[in-house]
């Protein structure tokens, strides 16, 4: 049996005796006999030594394919993670500390979150960021909730947003009994005419993802103007790497900017843990859910950081709180901060430019093959959809060559390229596609 209990059985007996007891059963005296599990009652295997556990779990990991080239995105992106970004969050104190409620002994965490909040504001152009939420999809749902008021309760979302985001927002709306309406897609983008018609006086907000699920760049600024003219709030879901070069949500008129922070130093990890960032303008600051770190002074007048504006939160407002969210994703926010510091503005810009360049190179090379076409006509960042015959065979052939090809979606295959993939890897993939379609 593996155990992390320091005391020996005889030491445990001593403690029991010190309490005037002779058995563990007495400690659980008030537990009715019919529900008390005797020793060995659990129908589980016996515990294991560390070496055995290591073998067992490693064997499970060994049953997963590690592809040497990944050309699939769709909400989870294979960017290069600098070594220092991997290493720092493994430091024991960062890793094992609790939430920084006791500011006097947690300045390290509080300051790192304050720095993260600042960097996210710089990246998005917004005024205020929270300490993070679970992921991009829940950030979108929380943003929709924050935009509702007594008069305006309907949430609009673009049909070109990530399906998981739409489904998550739909679930949160189901919870509160609010209505979600999906704006149709036209040529891989939000249908602006449909949007205009759907922007009625009961609409609280419209959410658009930029770039969208199909990789296409939306007319974010025009959409913002349309949404504001209808008196609603504008929520943009952003890719943080793309913000190295793309117009910021602030510049597009967003009231709330959210997104999936996974590209900022978190590995693919079969989907988690990831990072939801949420930021807004000064005007809407007090509507932001979740933890926020603020600056103040201590009793000696020295600069200090604390969890702030807690009157918004569940432990104070209970059933009147706007969200039940209690924790953030602190270690992931720390990771994102280290990534942004390591890459710097130039590095993120470079990662963005190269991702875009490689994706366009891949698209051009694939479309040079007979039978392959781009599904949509709009500008794209680092993802695009192609139509081609024998799609399944193509993906199988790529898999055999250790390449994870694009994701099969309605309308074709959704490909992605990041700065991590080399020209040689792209050329190899294209060759294989060419062979299959020949």
């Amino acid at each position, binding site marked *: *049996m593996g*155990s*992390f*209990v320091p005391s020996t059985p005889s030491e*445990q007996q001593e403690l029991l005796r010190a*309490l005037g007891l002779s058995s563990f059963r007495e*400690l*659980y*005296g*008030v*537990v009715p006999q019919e529900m008390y*599990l005797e020793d060995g009652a*659990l129908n589980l295997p016996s515990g294991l030594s560390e070496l055995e*556990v290591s073998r067992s*779990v*490693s064997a499970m*990991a060994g049953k*997963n394919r590690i*592809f040497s080239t990944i050309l699939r995105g769709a909400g989870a992106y294979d960017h290069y993670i600098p070594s220092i970004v991997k290493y*720092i969050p493994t430091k024991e*104190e960062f890793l094992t500390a*609790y939430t920084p409620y006791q*500011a006097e*002994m*947690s300045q*390290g*965490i509080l*300051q790192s979150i304050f720095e993260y*909040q600042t960097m996210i504001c710089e990246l998005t152009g917004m*005024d205020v960021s929270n300490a993070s939420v679970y992921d991009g999809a*829940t950030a979108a749902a929380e943003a929709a909730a924050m935009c509702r008021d007594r008069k305006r309760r309907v949430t609009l979302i673009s049909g070109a947003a990530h399906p*998981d*985001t739409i489904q998550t927002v739909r679930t949160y709306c189901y*919870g*509160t009994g609010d209505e979600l309406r999906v704006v149709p897609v036209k040529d891989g983008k939000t249908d602006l005419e449909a949007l205009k018609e759907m922007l009625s006086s009961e609409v609280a907000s419209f959410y658009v993802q930029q770039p969208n699920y199909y990789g296409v760049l939306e007319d974010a600024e025009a959409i913002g103007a349309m949404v504001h003219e209808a008196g609603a709030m504008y929520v943009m879901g952003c890719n943080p790497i793309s913000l190295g070069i793309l*117009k910021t949500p602030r510049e597009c008129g967003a009231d709330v900017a959210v997104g999936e922070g996974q590209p900022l130093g978190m590995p693919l990890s079969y989907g*988690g*843990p*990831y990072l939801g960032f949420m930021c807004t303008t000064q005007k809407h600051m007090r509507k932001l859910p979740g*933890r926020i770190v*603020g*600056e*103040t002074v201590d009793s000696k007048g020295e600069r200090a950081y*604390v969890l702030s504006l807690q009157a918004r939160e*569940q*432990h104070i407002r209970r059933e*009147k709180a706007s969200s039940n*969210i*209690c*924790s953030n*994703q602190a270690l992931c926010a*720390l990771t994102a901060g*280290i990534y942004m*510091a390591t*890459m710097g*503005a130039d590095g*993120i810009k470079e990662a963005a430019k190269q991702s875009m360049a490689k994706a*366009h*190179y891949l698209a051009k090379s694939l479309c040079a093959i007979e039978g392959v076409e781009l599904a949509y006509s709009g500008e794209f960042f680092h993802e695009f959809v192609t139509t081609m015959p024998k799609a399944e065979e193509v993906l199988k052939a790529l898999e055999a060559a250790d390449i994870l090809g694009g*994701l099969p979606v309605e309308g074709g295959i959704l490909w992605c390229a990041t700065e991590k993939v080399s020209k040689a890897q792209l050329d190899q993939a294209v060759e294989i596609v060419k062979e299959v379609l020949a």
Partner: protein
Amino acid sequence: MKLIFEKSTAGHRCSILPACDVEEVALPAELARGEAPKLPELSETEISRHYTELNKRVHGVNCGFYPLGSCTMKYNPRIDEGMAALPGFTAVHPLAPAHTVEGCKEALDTAKQYLCEITGMDDMTFQPAAGAHGEFTGVLLIKQYHDARGDSKRRKIIVPDSAHGTNPATAAMCGYDVVNIPSAPNGCVDLEALKAVLGEDTAGLMLTNPNTVGIFDENILEITRLVHEAGGLCYYDGANLNAVMGVVRPGDMGFDCIHLNLHKTFATPHGGGGPGSGAVGCKAALAPYLPKEDGIRVRSFHGNFLVVIKALTYLLTLGKEGVPEAAKNAVLNANYLQSKIRGTFTPAFDRLCMHEFVLDLSEFKKETGVSALDVAKTLIDHGMHPPTMYFPLIVHEALMLEPTETESRETLDEAAEIFRKLYELAKTDPEYMHAAPHHAQIGRPDEVRAARNPILRYSF
């Protein structure tokens, strides 16, 4: 200490990416951002030093005793970290074809098997990313269940006044009206108060057992029976599972669905405030309502997968014998510590506790003028992370201690001695304690100023 932005020097950088090996593509001007973001410019040396300096101002479980009631700050095993860092897990895309991720499937199935057995549930999801997120998911199961039966009059969720703030907040997020019931003087559910509010409009009850004052409610079977009789369902808040895992199963207590905090009971690290994992289990009748393709979804992809790997590794290590051993020693340690402190501070409930106990400092404050907050802040000077303060709300001047099973007797004896010292100090030098801490990273921060004049980012 300087902020990272205050350490920035123009031109300092790390060299991470090579030059682009394909032709550059320009963004149309109208889509391009105007100004570059102001991110710090640092060399790797400077980054390394900055985060080392920050890390020195963080108190981890590795630094010392961390008796935070309700948080289960047990030791985080290193093997869990090692397994979660395996490339076979970290390099896997969430949308990779099923036949290429058999290992992920096996890991999740094994974790589900262990946790369903421990909790007495039939099915489980790992999609929720945190405890509160799990609560939301669990209450949505109840909501879907009643909606599917066309039972629209069930608008109320019952919550005891001792509950964690997330419970009523969750119920509100699911469109329910919250009915708070007062706790009995012994801290447990007042059966008469419960009966008085049960009816045709009851959707369910949210409960923690042992409860937030660390006591196992011996009426639990009657409580769940009453709720079921009224047509409601019972939700178990698993925050306190460390007291009973492998000893009592929530399923056997009559609960229909539960959430677990993998980052508490199952030893995954807290990370300074996440990421955790709020696995949700349920009985077969609710299984159709778990997250699925044409049903609900509470976040993208599959949940905090690497966190589940850490919990799985821990479960495989403990196994059949280790799971109840952990719970039993958590309860033993809490009772031992309570008995050692009892000579000075006053336990709120003078009886055997479960894995945590609450001290009531209201009389102590009247006598000495020293509050629970003052005691907590003075503990910081002694290198101990303070216990949970002012929770649950039903005890005044509360300090809640949860030692966990991974502490030795020596640590508990030392802790009791520190509490004894502070008890004496309050009588001889209360002023010192009002102004504590004196030797920490900072003195007491002005929280009022922070809220009144919010500065939430650095300004260049």
